[in-house]
């Protein structure tokens, strides 16, 4: 690790100012991505602003939305009663997202900003990585790719966005509250992420010195049912090969409302608008689900090591649609 200056911020404005004053400074929250990448030599900030003691730890229900402070941990959010009662898919994505130890450390804001697990990105001795060194190429495309993306992927970059929580949150149209040097703004999570086929080196719309202060999750209608299915080699403690967040409102066998997002397959958490469009108003049948899954994956871009993800993601989505709807025929 490169030597760095450590500063502990005590209020949000100060944190933003400290960041604004130093174009190379980074935030430190749970540390599970930041310190890991610093040890790998991928990130070498000369200054770390420890934001863990900022007053962004609250979970508050306001009418039909849940306001979650950016520094709430994954474990704390999973234990929240509103999440347990109204947002089962969020809870499942959290519990399946990491070990308990990591969940006690990782924050909601940090989770949304977690970096890819691509080992070509994470090893700075690999010269070709458009994410680390724009314009240098992508070694993973011709490499040992398996845990990589097929949606939003291209020969420029196939780095996977590995978050589970963000998949559930994009499906729910969560909002990201951001504070920057010139004020605050709110960005829908669906517009927060950029895909790697467009800008491998830039993953979100967040600017330097902007801080996520919280996430606002609209609560689904009481009639909605939801779930999160994560498929992986290990039974636990592994990133997804494919995952599906599904929320449905059904009425007598007809799908009134569908929210669908996929994980483990995209260079960003992948909202499946095409699937939602096909599902909405259609009968809840396996035929409908299959059609929706095929539409979702039709633009996949694969390399030999990732080709299996196309059928896997389809089947994962069909299975979760069946599970949430209770329809297996």
């Amino acid at each position, binding site marked *: 690790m490169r030597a760095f200056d450590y500063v502990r911020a005590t209020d949000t404005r100060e944190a933003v100012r400290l960041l604004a004053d130093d174009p190379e400074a980074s935030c430190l929250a749970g540390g599970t991505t930041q310190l890991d990448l610093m040890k790998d030599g991928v990130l070498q900030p000369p200054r770390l602003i420890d934001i863990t003691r900022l007053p962004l730890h609250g979970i508050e229900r306001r009418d039909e939305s849940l306001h979650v402070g950016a520094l709430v941990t994954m474990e704390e959010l999973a234990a929240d009663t509103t999440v347990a009662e109204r947002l089962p898919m969020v809870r499942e994505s959290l519990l399946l997202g990491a070990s308990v130890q990591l969940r006690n450390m990782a924050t909601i804001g940090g989770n949304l900003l977690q970096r890819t*697990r691509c080992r070509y990105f994470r090893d700075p001795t*690999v010269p070709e990585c458009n994410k680390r060194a724009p314009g240098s190429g992508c*070694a993973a495309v011709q*490499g040992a790719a398996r845990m990589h993306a097929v949606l939003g992927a291209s020969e420029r970059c196939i780095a996977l966005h590995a978050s589970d929580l963000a998949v559930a949150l994009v499906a729910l149209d969560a909002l990201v509250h951001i504070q920057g040097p010139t004020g605050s703004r709110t960005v829908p999570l669906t517009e927060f992420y950029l895909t790697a086929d467009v800008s491998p080196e830039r993953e979100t719309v967040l600017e330097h010195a902007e801080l996520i202060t919280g996430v606002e999750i609209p609560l689904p209608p009481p009639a909605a049912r939801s779930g999160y299915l994560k498929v992986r080699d290990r*039974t636990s*403690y592994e990133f997804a090969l494919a995952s599906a967040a599904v929320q449905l409102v059904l009425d007598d066998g007809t799908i009134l409302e569908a929210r669908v997002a996929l994980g483990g397959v995209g260079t960003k958490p992948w909202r499946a608008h095409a699937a939602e469009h096909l599902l909405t108003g259609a009968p809840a049948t396996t035929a409908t689900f299959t059609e929706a899954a095929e539409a979702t994956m039709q633009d996949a871009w694969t390399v030999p090591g990732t080709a299996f993800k196309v059928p*896997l993601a389809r*089947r994962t989505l069909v299975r979760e649609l069946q599970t949430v709807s209770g329809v297996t025929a």
Partner: protein
Amino acid sequence: MSTVESRTRIGAGVNRVDGPRKVTGTAPYPMDFSVPGQAYGALVQSTVAAGRIVRMHTEAAEAAPGVITVLTHENAPKVGTGPTTVLGAAPPPPLRNDRILHHGQHIAFVVADTPEQATAAARLVRADYEATEPLLDLQDPRAEQLVDPWGMDTSRGDAAAALKSAEVTLQATYTTADNTNNPLGLFATLAAWEGDALTVHDTSQWPSMVRTTLAMVFGIPESSVRVLVPYVGGGFGAGLRVWPHVILTAMAARMIKRPVKLVLTRPQMFTSIGHRPSGVQWLGVGATRDGELVALDHRSLSSLSMEDNDYEPFTWASSFAYRCPDVITQDRQARLNIAVPTSMRAPAEAQGNFALESALDELAHQLRIDPVELRLRNHADVDPRNGLPWSGKALRECYEVGAQRFGWSDRNPEPRSMRDGNWLVGYGMASALFPYFAQPCAAQATVRRDGSALVRSAAADIGTGTYTVMAQLAAEELGLPLDQVRFDLGDSDMPHSMMAGGSGLTGALGNAVHDACRRLLRQFAELAHDDADSPLRGFPPDDMECTDGRIHPTGRPDLGEPYADILARHGLTELTANGNSTPPVPTELGMSLSGAYGAKFVEVRVDADLGLIRVARVVSAIDGGRILNEKTARSQIIGGTVGGIGMTLLEDTATDPRTGRIANGTFADYLVAVNSDIPDLDVVFVGEPDRGTATGTKGVGEVGLVGIAAAIANAVHHATGKRIRDLPITLDALL
């Protein structure tokens, strides 16, 4: 010739004597040691796989805060090479020249005042290379192939002719992946010199060999080297050799005249301490229609580095696993630009057994014979190589007891016939063996004036329970309660020990402890023989035994007296005896040493749509000969099973096909089994003490792993109808 002594077949499952230290965090592992004034090392590794170094740039690192020195091939002193052992010639020493033979090769060693400084400065070392195209593909025709590298190829009868004329034949190709040993404990070395005397704390499964190696490398007497390894954070074979980083650490410490400590990083654990090589195997099986094997042709090719060697005779055990008149087995290795492979738990057998036992399952399916029945019909009642009886083989009992506990008879033989919701259910089984292995071993036993005993040997306990079972054995031999016996190990100043590997240590060391204790007993008896005050006076010293801490003529406990009384009367504070063991010779025994056997029964569940594979149940019926401690032996079988599940379903060291870089060299990317992957595992021990050695043990460190891969693959076939011949079996293959 040794004789089997009458003892309990299964020893008490007492708790580990080192348990209190392990659960309180006070057991010191190599990385836990520190000495005043120590400096810290960090490795710099090659970022190309083949070629040569044109220039090293070390100026920035040398100028970095806290840096003491940077070693490269340009300034490293020339050193010697370690001894040739049963595993072959020693690894070539580090930093000899400018050649690059694999990605991750050590090209520099940075030493600094703190670990943070050493690690940061190591990133500042740059190298210019002339890189050439690396050879990375096992079947690349340009790769040099070593033919019969261990002289263990076999041939009896005429397998080719028998295969041609067989009523039924089967030809299949199987592949196994690179696996990485990945013990949890990061390998660490702490080297401290005092003049020409060297003390090393090192992660090793073979302290005696580390001492010999370091003495040869640095040209100093063995008596000047002391290697300390009281605890090892696992090894699984990775600690059987003295790797270049150990020599680098000692080399640097000598140069800077300060102790140096090195702890490998997890990514470095993938390239610095060996791994299980990838392999391809070709099986030809000929049989009669009623399932009698008439021909077996088993050949393998496995990966090897450009230099160095790896003992990995995949196919050898196929020459004696079953009764079959015409057999040929052949192994080859291809030299590639990869880090050197090495033994990993159940070396060679893990791979060879997967191919053989998969093929037998295919044959059983083809002939519509029950897989257990097929194996029973081909059981080798005597050693098919030489006709000698086995020193102990309860494989038939393994099948019988294992099948009964598992409920094998409930199996519908038709593939894809059993289902539970989305889960396809499959049952599979396989036989397992791990050949007998032992090396010379020594131990020393002392009884002190207070009546307690200290027994010692320079062995390592890598978690197998050596501390515990040797204390149990010595307590039994000396007739003392367990808490009056201490067994010490992990110090090369103690009597020489063989490696903790190859399932050999318990047997070889046990026999040495047995010998030391018998000799000690005899010394006491000789003292008492002419002692007018001893109730043992006049009794023959060869015919003594010990009960409840009292030595007495065999069968006459009423005439005994405590050790302490004899010592006291003779003015002695202690008596010590040395014992030895050497591997028995089959021709002298008139028996073939059989090693451990087992039968594995597995239930898997495969998600019909998603291809997820979950192991639901495993029954392991094991013939491990005499079991010294049922608790620790059971743990060995459980642990081997977990390793086998990992090898079968998860583990695959991925190499970048262009650069030779390990592409998943972390614990987040290289998958080993986690707790939730493992169901309750049923283990049952059958059989009798082995007749080949005094203590009757066989060693159970490897046999738990062998057979798991084939049993799972066979169960996956039964569940899905798909025969997967390539490990690991992941959901990709089942979609």
